[in-house]
C-alpha cells in the first residue's frame, strides 16, 4: 500500500494546521472506515492527522437544555451516556444498532458523520463510480442496487449513507460544529450533507480542511419519547436496508409534535418533513401514520430492484409510530 505520513495533533488548532489545505491529507478518527478504504485503495492519503486524542471527548449539557457532544466521543460512550439515554433514547438505540462492540469502541461521532457509503461499486476501485471518480459512471443504476437509494438520488449516484447515528441526529435537528484555519463554524445537519445532483463526490458542505469538533442537540422534549428501528439482512453487524428514527408527542389521541427521519433510503440521513407536516395535529392512528409515510414516500423513485424499500419504510413508520402512540396512551 501507499506510504503515508502520520501526525498526531495535540489540539484543535494544531490539527487544522497540520492538515492545512492539502487535499491529500485526511483526519483520522477511529479509523474504522478510513483505514478499510486505504486498504482497498479507495482512499490514498499522503498524510493522516490523528485527531482521536484531541480533548473533544466530552458530552455536556448545554445551558439551553440541549446537549453538546464532542467529535471524538466514541460511539460506545455516546450510547451509554445517561443524558443521551434519557433525553434522546432513539440516538442511543441508533448507535447501538450499528457495527459491533469492538467497532463502536473505536468509532467516533465525527467519523460516523463523515463515513463513506458502502456501495459495492464505490468500494471497488476496478469499477466506475461517479462518487470516487467523477464522470466515470454509475454501474448501480443497471447493476446491483437492491440496497440503494429511493429518495433524493440522481442518475449520477444512487448510493445510500450508511450511518444509523446520523438518522437520529437528523430527526433531532442536530447542529455540527467545525473548526477551520479561519475560525469556527456551524452547519445544521439538514444542510451538512449536500444534495447528490451531478456532484456525488461532494458529500458535505464543510469548508476545505475543516475539522468536525462536535455536535449540538437542541433541547427537544419530544425526543424523550423516541425510538430507532433498523431492518437489516442479518440480526447484527450489517448496514440497514431501511431504518426509522421517530419521536412522538401525543395527547388526547392527537399528535402534538413529531420528528421522523429515515435511514438507508438516500445519500444522507433523510429528514421526513412532509410526513411530520401530516402528523402534526392529526389523530394518532395507524391510518394517519400511513398517510404521513405516503406523503414522504410520494417522492420515491425506486429502481427495478429496490422498490420494496417504499413498502418497508411505510410499514416501519406505521409500526414505530404505533408503538410510540400506544406507549403514550398508557
Amino acid at each position, binding site marked *: 500500500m501507499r506510504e503515508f505520513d502520520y501526525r498526531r495533533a495535540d489540539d484543535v488548532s494544531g490539527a487544522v494546521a497540520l492538515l492545512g489545505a492539502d487535499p491529500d491529507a485526511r483526519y483520522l478518527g477511529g479509523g474504522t472506515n478510513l483505514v478499510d478504504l486505504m486498504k482497498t485503495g479507495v482512499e490514498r492519503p499522503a498524510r493522516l492527522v490523528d485527531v482521536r486524542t484531541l480533548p473533544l471527548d466530552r458530552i455536556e449539557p448545554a445551558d439551553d437544555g440541549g446537549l453538546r457532544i464532542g467529535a471524538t466521543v466514541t460511539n460506545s460512550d455516546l450510547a451509554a451516556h445517561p443524558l443521551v439515554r434519557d433525553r434522546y433514547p432513539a440516538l442511543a438505540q441508533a448507535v447501538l444498532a450499528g457495527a459491533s462492540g469492538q467497532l463502536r469502541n473505536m468509532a467516533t461521532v465525527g467519523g460516523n458523520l463523515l463515513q463513506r457509503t*458502502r456501495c459495492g461499486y464505490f468500494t471497488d476501485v476496478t469499477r466506475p463510480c461517479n462518487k470516487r471518480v467523477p464522470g466515470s459512471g454509475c454501474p448501480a443504476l443497471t447493476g446491483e442496487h437492491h440496497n440503494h437509494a429511493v429518495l433524493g438520488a440522481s442518475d449520477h449516484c444512487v448510493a445510500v449513507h450508511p450511518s444509523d447515528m446520523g438518522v437520529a441526529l437528523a430527526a433531532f435537528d442536530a447542529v455540527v460544529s467545525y473548526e477551520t484555519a479561519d475560525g469556527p463554524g456551524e452547519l445544521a445537519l439538514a444542510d451538512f450533507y449536500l444534495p447528490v445532483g451531478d456532484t456525488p463526490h461532494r458529500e458535505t458542505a464543510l469548508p476545505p480542511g475543516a475539522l468536525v469538533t462536535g455536535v449540538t442537540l437542541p433541547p427537544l422534549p419530544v425526543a424523550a419519547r423516541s425510538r430507532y428501528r433498523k431492518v437489516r439482512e442479518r440480526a447484527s453487524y450489517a448496514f440497514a436496508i431501511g431504518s426509522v428514527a421517530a419521536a412522538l408527542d401525543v395527547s388526547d389521541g392527537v399528535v402534538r409534535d413529531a420528528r421522523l427521519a429515515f435511514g438507508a433510503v438516500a445519500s444522507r440521513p433523510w429528514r421526513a418533513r412532509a410526513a411530520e407536516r401530516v402528523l402534526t395535529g392529526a389523530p394518532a392512528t395507524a391510518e394517519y401514520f400511513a398517510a404521513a409515510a405516503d406523503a414522504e414516500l410520494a417522492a420515491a423513485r425506486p429502481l427495478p430492484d429496490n422498490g420494496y424499500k417504499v*413498502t418497508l419504510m411505510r410499514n416501519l413508520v406505521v409500526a414505530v409510530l404505533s408503538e410510540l402512540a400506544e406507549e403514550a396512551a398508557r
Partner: protein
Amino acid sequence: MTTATTRPTAVTGAVGTAHTRVEGRDKVTGAARYAGEIPFADLAHGWLVLSTVARGRILSVDTASVLGMPGVLAVLHHGNAPRLDVDYVGMLGVPPDPTAAVFQNDRVPHAGWPVALVVAETPEQAREAAEALVVTYEEEPHDIGFHAGRPDAHPVDGHMPGVTEKGDLEAGFAASAHVVDAEYTTPEEHHAMMEPHAATALWDGGRLEVVDSNQGTTWVVDELVRMFQLEPSAVRVRSEHVGGGFGSKGVRAHQVSAVMAATLLQRPVRVVLTRRQMFSLTGHRSPTTQRVRLGADADGRLRALDHRSLSRTSTVWEFVEPSAGVARVMYDADAHRTANEVVRLDVPSPTWMRAPGEAPGSFALEAALDELAERCGVDPVELRLRNDPDRGPVSGLPFAGRDVAACFREGARRFGWAERDPRPGVRREGRWLLGTGTAAASFPAGALPSTAAVTAEADGTFTVRIAAADIGTGARTALTLVAADALRVEPDRVRVRIGDSDFGPAGIAGGSMGTRSWAWAVTAAVEELRERLVPGAPVPPEGITARSDTTAAVAGLAQKERHSFGAQFAEVAVDVTTGEVRVRRMLGIFSAGRIVNPLTARGQLVGGMVWGISMALHEEAVRDGASGGLYGPDLAGYHVATHADVPVVEADWLEGTPDPDDPVGIKGVGEIGIVGAAAAIANAVWHATGVRHRHLPIRPDRVLRAGGPRV
C-alpha cells in the same frame, strides 16, 4: 435405541468422552502459529495481481515501471513464468484447476484471474507495486448468465454419475394422486473461512519446503510434484494449524506462485491472499437451479421422483455441484430420475464446499417433500417415515445402518413436534408470525487410504505421526483419543503429530472422511505395534515404530450404502411487514456412527447447522453482470450468520445401528450438520407465513415482496 453422548466404547474410555483440544491452550494464547505468521530469515513477499476483465487476452504487462519501485525483486507473469505440467489427474481424481497453475498463457477466463505476482522485500512494497502494475487486455464479451433452460447445459459425472434413471416417469406422475413440480434456486456461496490462504515456499538442501494452510499435505505435495515435475521425495509440505478450510484449501495460486518465486529468487517467498482475492481464487459453491417433481399416492408414498439440478462451472475447469445426488440415497420411487447438469460460463472455478451437492440438493428436495406433505395432508415427519427405503434407491445395496426414522422419532419427541398445528400462518406473537419445519439429512461415510506410524518411546509415551490435517475440527484431539484407546493408555501419554507430508501419504480433511480414514490407519499401526512390544522388555532409545497402510483394507470394504443420517428441526419468527426472519431454535438429531469426541463432534454438527442458517437467510455472492466480477466481495458485503442470528442450536446423536463389516465405526460429522438445515428453516418460514420461499437466501426484500398474513 437411546441417545448416548458420552458412552465409553473402549478400554480406557477416551473415545466417547468429551476432551478439550490438545492444542487449545496454544491456540487461545497465540502460541499456535498459522502459515502466514511463521518467521523465516530473508523472507520475501509476493502479491498477486488479478485481472480486471472477465474475458479476454493479456496484451502487455508493464513490468519495467514497477521493477524500479522500492524493494521490488521480481514480477512473474505468463511471459516469464516457468511452464508447468498440468496434464495429469491428481489424487482426488481430477485434473488441476488452471486457476492454481498460474501464469501459463495469456488467456483471461474470468474476472479476478491471476495474471502476475509481484515480489518485494516487504508485503507493503509488494502490494504497492502490484497495485501500480499496468496490465493491458484485449477484452472480449463475457457470458455469466446462469439460469434454467440454457441450451448448453449438459450432464456431468463429477464424483458420481451425472444421470440415473429407472422406471417410466411420465406414467408415474400420471398415476399419482398428488404432484409437486417446483423450481428452487440457491446462490453462489463462498467458504469464507477465517484464515486466508497463505504459503511460504523455500528451497532447503535441494528440497522444496512449503509451509502452508491446507486440508491435506499429501494432496498438496502430489500436485506440486506433478506441476513442477519434481521427485516426490524432493517436496515437503507442512500445515500444522489451519483456520478453516471447508473444501477450499487445496492447491491454489498462492502455493504455486510462491514456489515459482522461491525458485527464481532462491530465497523464501510468502504469498498471502487477501479476503477479496479469495473470492475469485479459492473456489466457491456454484449457484444451482433445481427442478424437483414428486408424484405420490394419496397417502404420500412416492410413485415418481425427478430431480434435475443445474450448476455452473468455469470455462477452464469442470466441477459439478451434484445436488441431484441426494435422492439417490434418500428416497425411492418406481420411476426415479436424477440428473446433475452443468453450464460453462466466464466465472471463477467452483469447487467442493461443505456438503457439496447435499447442501443445495437437500434444500430443494426436502422443501419439495414439505410441499408434498401439505398437498397430501400428511405430517412432514410421517411423510419421511412412509418413504424410508430399505435399500439404496439407485444402487440397490443394503444400508450400513439407516437410522433416518429413529432420528425423526427422537427429534420429534424432543422438539415437541406432536403439538404442532399443521396450518400455516396462524401463530402470532407480537409482530412475529411463528412456524416450525423439519427436513432429513444424509452424508456419505467414505474413507481414503492412509498411512500412519506409531512409536513407543523409551520414556513410556507414544508418538503418532500421520499426515492428517486439523482444519479446526479437532482431528488432532480425536486421533489422540483413538490412539490412547487402541494403546490402552491414558491420552496424556500420546502425542499426535500431524500436518507434515514427510509422515507418509494420508487422506485429506474433506468429504467428512478425515477422522474415519486417519483413525483407521492409526488403529492399524497401533495393532502392529502392540504385536511388536514385548511386555516387560525395555524400549530402546530410538523407540519402536510400527507403520500401517490402509490402502488394501479400504479397497476391501464390503459394498454398502454407508452414510451418516439425521433429522433437522427449526422454529422461526417472521415479520412480514419488514421481511425479517429470525430462527428461534434448532434441533438436529444425527446418527453418525461412533462419536470420538462429543465436545468437538457437537461443535462440528452445530457449526454445520449454523451454516444452514446462513445458507437459508444470509449467504449470497452477487455477481455483477456488466463486469462479471462480484459485488462487495468482502465479509461486510458477504453475510454469514452473526451470533445474534444464532439462537439455541442443539445437536445430539443416536448410538445408531452398528455395521459389523466396518472396522472403524466412525462415520464423520463435518458436513451433515448443514444438510437439510436450510430446508427445515424454509419449511418453517412457510409454516409461519403460508408462503413458499424457493429461492435462497430468504432475504427481507423477498419476504416483503412475497407478503403473507398481516399481524
